[in-house]
């Protein structure tokens, strides 16, 4: 997969969909393309958050530790981003991510991500929009859960 294909993939990630392609290309270029085989760990719960990952191909499981061992809470498919929240709020990883199949991903380093946000306000606004969107969904879910 070439840089320009990666740009195409990034455009399909909701977080980045509103950002002009030239900036996405820079983001892709400065990110590392990483490969994992099935079963390999991308990061562990409690690790320091140093990067976000955009899944390019394959799939991964999000796992949370519990008393009875790790529980899978969600599945990541191509074009999804994972780990961006932890790098935004400087916290450690709240869950682990493990490759379910052979996996290719774009690893966006924390400092690069933050730098881009600082430099391109349109990108920051876009990210804010997506996060606010998620928050309102979560709130709605919460209300549903309370009323149910």
């Amino acid at each position: 997969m070439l840089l320009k294909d990666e740009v195409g993939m990034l455009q399909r990630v909701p977080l980045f969909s509103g950002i002009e392609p030239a900036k996405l290309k820079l983001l892709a270029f400065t990110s590392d393309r990483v490969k994992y085989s099935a079963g390999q760990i991308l990061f562990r719960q409690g690790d320091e958050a140093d990067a976000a990952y955009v899944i390019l191909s394959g799939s991964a499981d999000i796992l949370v530790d519990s008393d009875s061992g790790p529980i899978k809470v969600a599945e990541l498919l191509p074009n999804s981003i994972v780990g961006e929240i932890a790098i935004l709020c400087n916290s450690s990883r709240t869950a682990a991510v493990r490759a379910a199949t052979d996996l290719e991903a774009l690893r966006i380093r924390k400092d690069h991500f933050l730098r881009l946000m600082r430099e391109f306000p349109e990108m920051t606004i876009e990210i804010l929009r997506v996060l606010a969107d998620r928050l309102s969904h979560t709130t709605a879910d919460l209300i549903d859960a309370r009323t149910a």
Partner: protein
Amino acid sequence: MEPSLARYIWKHTRKQQIWILLIVLLSMIPYFMSFDLPKLIVNGPIQGKGFEQPGATLPFMRLHYNLPFIGEVLLFSGFQLGRKATLLALSIVFLLLVVINGLFKLYINTYKGRLGERMLRRIRFDLVDRVLRFPPIYFKRVKSAEVATMVKDEVEPLGGFIGDAFLQPVLLGGQALTAMLFIMVQNVWLGAIAIVIVVIQIVLIPRMRRRLLVLGRQRQLTARALSGRVGEIVDGIGAVHVHDTSNYERADIAARLGLIFKIRFDLYQWKFMVKFLNNFLAQLTPFLFYMIGGYLVIAGRLDVGQLVAVIGAYKDLPGPMKELIDWDQDRQDVQVKYQQVVEQFTVEDIIAPTIGALTIDNPGPMTNPLSAVGLSMADDGGAMLLNRISMQVKPAETVALVSTPTGGAEALAEAFARLNWPESGKVASGADDLLELPEAVTGRRMSYASSDVFLFQASLRDNLLYGLKHAPLTSVTYDGAAADQQRWNIDEARRSGNPDLDIHSDWIDYASAGATGPHDLFEAVRRVLDAVLLSRDILDLGLRSSADLTRHTKLAGRIVELRAALRTRLEQEGLRELVVPFEPGAYNTEATIGQNLLFGAAAGPELADKALAANPYFASVLKQAGLDRTLYEMGMEIAEQAIELFADLPPDHQFFQQLAFMSAEEIPAYETLLQRLKNRSYEAVSEADRAMIITLSFAYIEPRHRFGLLTDELMRKIVAARNQFYENLPPELQNAIERYDPAKYIAAATVMDNVLFGRLGNNHPDAPDRIRSIVYEILDELGLYAELLNVGLDFNVGAGGRRLTGGQRQKLDVARALLKRPDFLILNRPLSALDQRIQEKVLRNVLEEARRDGHSPAIVWVVTSPAMATGFDRVIVFDSGQLVEDGTHETLLAGNGIFKELLS
């Protein structure tokens, strides 16, 4: 030191000064003979005086003297020679005299030069010797660069002066007196005129020069201060940048230079003013001679012959006079310089030479307790750090010193280490004042480490072993030329009052490290490095540096085995794709195109980095392989992409670290280049521009940059070009490159690259860490761990150790203190740069290591936190310069004192 330079010189060079004076007087004989000879030649054989008759002969070399009372004595009646033969003989004698005079001059100058250089060496050594004996307080007040300037530059002119110190005035004074006497003999009045003018010169000129001396002193002081400031800027460059004060520094330096300029210019003005006056006075005398002498001739009171003789004789007067005055100027100048330096180096309480005297045999262990008796310590401003403390540390006792921020425990540790001297009271070892014990005892039987570490600019190994180098322990035998050189070294050192200790001897005191010689020292080194948790850092340094193959032969010898072990290991763990190995016949996709083309490590500048594309031979290989055009097009594509991606970013943007092709500064140049070349055909592009563009392609790695520029065909062509490159490699490039060979160690590459013999996969973010730990395991399995540690120990720590982190420097300092296996180990917050957890770990390791093999040193540890005081026999608590608690950890904990308060 002697306050007067003349006395200093006389004291050390009396004999030589007298000898050279005698030689100079002796040299006068042929010198005056050569004056007389031209007259003899012209009058005799050339004009024919005494040869009026054809065939006449005259005696040559007839030696006869008219002695009083005895009358004429004929020693040799001489050869009878004809006119031509006499001419020849006299000419040969002239030539001989020329040679003899020349040889005398050569001998005298060499002798004077050597005398001066020896004295310079003596002075410099004396100065540094004094620096080594200054009391500690002195170093808080001087800048190191200023001391260095004094030793190096300010005493330098003394060397030139010393040879002439006594000779010149005797000689020139003699000449001037002779000329003066001659004038007086011719005519008393004219002589009186000359004397008056000379007296004016002698009185006036030195007076005027006094200002020169003042200015000279100012020049010296300002220049010294300048070098102090420059040294400070260099040492404090971090602070300058952190606070954006570089312009303040610029202003300060410019102001200083302005002042120096003013002083120097003043100096010039005065100098030439004085010169003018001096010349004027010298010329005034002939004027008076012509006028007054001429008047006397006209008046018939002086004959013309006398006047001419006086004027002739006067020609010989200004020369020596001027030189004499110059000599006096020099004398005062160097005297001032000397005094300035001596003043700076004359300090109260200088340490007696006996304290630091050379001691070859190791002193016995210090079995007496170390005690502070009514000890008070003050800082430089006079504030009390410790107030009349009395305490005692018994041998083999371990003591933790816990201190509140104003406690003063550090001051106690410094007093134990003799780094600061007591304000009152004393530190004693048994009954002896610690300050009166020779350093041979305290420096070998005690050791000290603190948070304030100084490392020398040398290898890690040298710094670690520094604490063992007390005395030359072996006598080195030299043969042949080296032996002559050594004899000369010793002889010269003695003549200049320098010690003749051999720096090439083995100074390392193996016994105190618990070793018997170089072969088993490494074990001790490894143990202390393990104890302070520094081994891993040093191994990393070793992996990243290139090994010196003359010393680390084992690594090179077993490289094939190592590489094979790594492959097997990666295979076993299913990590094969972490490393893509170099194979002579294949393209390595994880390496750059440049690396694939060269397939070797550049060992010289010819084929390194940017020079590669411009190398004519390399360019010709590319052309033959049909790659030049392809790589050019590739470079153009890369340039376009890079500029598109990066042109908008500010040059200091961190993304530029990702851009391997060009630096931020080069972007504008490439932008214009791209504009210029865009629509031009390849043939029309100049060689230099081609190289600029092709260079870009050399840094390209497909899996990393992902521009989609690498095809299978291109890879095949690159491998073919690689082989072509080596087939016809011209001899001048043979040493510029080391070809990758699976069976050979590559000296120009790092140890890591050698073991890997390939490239880490770019797609595996954790590859470097995993590989590194695998490599360490393999090295351990193959017994090469020590070898790698050894390579790491070659690492040069940089000026003041700045190439190491603060934590590494502190660990090294502790390791150095431990290595000595002392009787008293004083540690003054030695690990403050490390976090608490590591500090505690190192502390436990150090306590254990210090007591290994039944050793039981006393340990005094000023801890950074009271929690670290567990595990010590005794805990002493300081607050406000007072010893407030003293007891075992348990008792203090049980009590309700400051210690308990500090802990909670």
